[in-house]
């Protein structure tokens, strides 16, 4: 922190004049357990996407065909830069397609 600005240089009242700067704060360091989506089990119901408080569930336009031959238009991924590992997605998933796996440093 040696080069960080002193109190005289900082914007008045802790205002952050630049919008959207919080994206630079990657909150993944808070994570102890990491959610992993089993694409075979996932039924693309969007419940994890709805419930994620971050939001760190990303819906991508990427078709996926399961081994049983079912094709989905979209795929759900985890944004591991911001996922804090709260586990809400795993808790809410109706088909238990999300597992919380211990982070290994």
């Amino acid at each position, binding site marked *: *922190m040696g080069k960080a*600005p*002193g*109190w*005289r240089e900082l914007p*008045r*009242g*802790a*205002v952050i*004049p630049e919008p959207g700067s919080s994206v630079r704060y990657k909150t993944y360091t808070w994570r102890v357990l990491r959610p992993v989506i089993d694409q075979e089990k996932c039924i693309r119901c969007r419940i994890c996407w709805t419930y994620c408080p971050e939001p760190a569930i990303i819906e991508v336009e990427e078709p996926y065909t399961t081994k049983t031959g079912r094709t989905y238009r979209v795929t759900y991924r985890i944004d591991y830069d911001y996922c804090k590992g709260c586990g809400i997605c795993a808790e809410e998933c109706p088909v238990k397609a999300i597992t919380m796996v211990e982070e290994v440093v």
Partner: protein
Amino acid sequence: MGGKVIPISGNYAVAYAAKAVDVDVVAAYPITPQTAVVEKLAEFVANGELDAEFIHVESEHSALSAVVGASAAGARVFTATSAQGLLLMYEVMHIASTMRLPVVMSIATRAISAPINIWCDHSDFMASSDTGWIMLMALNAQEAHDLTVAAFRIAEDPEVELPVAVGYDGFWVSHTVEPVEVLEKDEALKYAPKRRRQYVLDPERPLTMGSLASPDWYFEFRVQLHDAVERSREVILRAFDEFGKSFGRVYKPVDGYFTDNADLVLISMGSASGTALTYVEEARKSGVRVGLVNIRQFRPFPEEELYKHLEGAGVVAVVDRALNPGSAFVGPLYSDVVLTLFKRGLDIPVLDFVVGLGGRAVTRRDFDEITKRSLAYLGKRMKDIKQHYAFIGVRE
């Protein structure tokens, strides 16, 4: 110069001040401990005399939060409270100050529960003394009016940008009627013009207010706050000076009466200073060398101005209308006075007299007793005092 003189209560005097400076947003919770300040403002808004948004909220915490939000959006804002209501606002008071939002609030100073009591003392006001707000205390209804107008100019000064609280004694000032010269809108706005601040919430220029500050950042913003409160001293002096030039009533951070080479200087705040002055004038006639200091600016504490009135004194008696049980100082005003003298190396006896809690009247007889007890220490030093404080007017 000057508006018309009308007979109004201290509460209405404050409401007329907020109207004169053309506030944009008022938020208030309408039941006790609220006073008629916001009732009158609601009337002004309802009958079209004041073009403001009046927000009815569900608590004092929300009242202050609502004006914090409106102030962040650049509005000129006002709220009012007392006692338990002020305690409920306590959390948000710190938010308003460190976020540097120029909220103006009037406080009809009252006792706090328990037991339930709606009458005057300074317990609520004193409990807010560490919030980073500029705190002024009016002596009467005219001052409540004038200081509220001045508060907007001080709060919104680009050098300051801090919330300001204007205290005036519950019931003794808030609910008694006095002749008050009410300022007109054009002259009040000329004195306290609205300004656009550097940072306001604006969809065209997005920014973040009220963000998280980790240990790497928090400390700096608290020091910024302290610095702003310190720098407000000059701005307050200029605001008072300009007020005197514009409207003919001259205010100072402290008033001194007969303090030159006085054997005893009494220090008081609020309406009791009026009673004290009457006592001092009488006592002087009978040869008692007693003086008085009235504290008008409580935060930032006017050490230099106060010291000028105390440096020639034999004994100092602080009249406190609040109590900090178990502290080293007992009465809160006492601690500021003792430190003011100690820091300058002046070792004279300073006594603390706690008076008038929960609306008990403070009389000339009380000041006479305080004077007699204090003068017994003339020529002594601080360490000669066995008991530094006493309760005046309490039943043993």
